[in-house]
């Protein structure tokens, strides 16, 4: 199951979201049901587990472990359905805040700081990948073990202090890394002599303020596409 967890979003879609992936990851465990993979119990469980499900892909490991456990414990179908529904919300929001909005930017900014300090490709890429994946793989392994060991009692594990209160701390760490990493990275990207620092500073301040102001109307990366296209056209049309 652990290796399948890395492909849990393989059939992600707007109808069932992660649903098919949950069934796909649990399938090896469900084969242990009485009668094996041709039994009605296996088919009923796989059908149940392949329906709509939403969670952060890493924290979905908790659901996969817990749901596999309750299926193998032969809990009543309606109880499993209710348990499955109850797991959906928390596993999404915890992962989004902790990983996508915290750990990933933190690792990215630390790697940018290493880059800004003059790190070579191996140091920069290695820093990012090792730092990020220690937590990534750790969450998947922890999630599967915790879900499997606790089954229906998995809610208590989701009350762990790191999961409940960790997000703001990780966000503050990322903010610190942003403060240190951004000027260093920009200093290196701009190159030797750091030409035209006033342009960079003014563009960063005004552009940043504009993007924040327009945040519900246009995203920064789209605006950057337009601005870069204008710069390119102006640079060849002079």
């Amino acid at each position: 199951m652990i290796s399948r967890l890395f492909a849990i979003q393989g059939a992600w879609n707007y109808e069932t979201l992660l649903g098919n992936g949950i069934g796909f990851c649990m399938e090896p465990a469900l084969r242990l049901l009485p009668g094996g993979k041709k039994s009605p119990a296996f088919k009923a469980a796989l059908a149940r587990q392949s329906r709509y499900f939403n969670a952060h892909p890493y924290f979905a490991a908790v659901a996969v472990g817990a749901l596999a456990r309750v299926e193998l414990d032969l809990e009543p179908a309606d109880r499993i359905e209710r348990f499955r529904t109850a797991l959906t919300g928390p596993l999404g929001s915890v992962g989004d805040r902790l990983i996508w909005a915290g750990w990933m930017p933190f690792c990215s900014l630390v790697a940018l700081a290493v880059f800004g300090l003059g790190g070579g490709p191996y140091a920069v890429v290695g820093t990012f990948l090792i730092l990020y994946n220690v937590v990534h793989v750790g969450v998947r392994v922890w999630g599967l073990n915790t879900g499997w060991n606790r089954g229906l009692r998995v809610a208590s594990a989701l009350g762990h202090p790191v999961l409940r209160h960790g997000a703001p701390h990780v966000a503050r760490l990322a903010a610190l890394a942003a403060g240190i990493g951004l000027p260093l990275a920009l200093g290196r990207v701009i190159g030797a002599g750091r030409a035209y620092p006033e342009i960079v500073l003014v563009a960063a301040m005004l552009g940043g303020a504009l993007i924040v102001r327009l945040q519900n109307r246009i995203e920064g990366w789209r605006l950057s596409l337009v601005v870069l296209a204008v710069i390119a056209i102006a640079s060849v049309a002079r």
Partner: protein
Amino acid sequence: MSAYLIDILPIALLGGLLGLDVVGFPQAMISRPLVAATAGGMLVGHSMSGMIVGAALELIALETLPFGAARYPEWGSAATVGGVLYARHSADPAGAMTMAVLAAVATAWVGGWSMIQLRNVNARAAGRRQAALDSGARGTVIGLQIGGLSADLLRGILLTAVAYAALDPLVTATLGIWDVDGKLSRAMVVGVAAAVALAGGWKLFHSVPWARWVFLCGLGVGVLVLVAR
């Protein structure tokens, strides 16, 4: 022509693998621009150039987070294209970074659109097999998963191949007539990346207690180190 295809093939395969990482497998963030562009640069023998353009792209990508059903650009294949394009002009002629970043962001935009199409294809494929899914057919569940992964890999390969084949001649031609000082061109790209990164940072941290003060402390340290170097 065949030599050109042989040139594109490894780039397309790398872009496909890194595009697959964004959502499908293994989500180890080898698709982040800093990693993907460095890998692209390494493929054509200039990892340092790939890393530099990757850093500029990473600053822009900080703003976009891959929340579940959100629609976001696909940076894996795009940064591969950007890294290769910049590395192929490793002498850094005027405008090279501008064009590489522009090409990568444009590819990321198309890549994001292609991911939405793939998700719709996955939904239709699941819908067509609803009866089999409702009856717990093992082969259908596994088939949908493997089909989705294969389609995502193919999507990344095609996207990278088409983007590179279209943009490489365009970038080369554009650089031939680029008429703005190289350092000024580069400063403008860095300014754009810095603006997006600052806005991205604000979006991430503005609601977290004390985060802005922590950011300012870090900024002080960062600027001091930058000036001292």
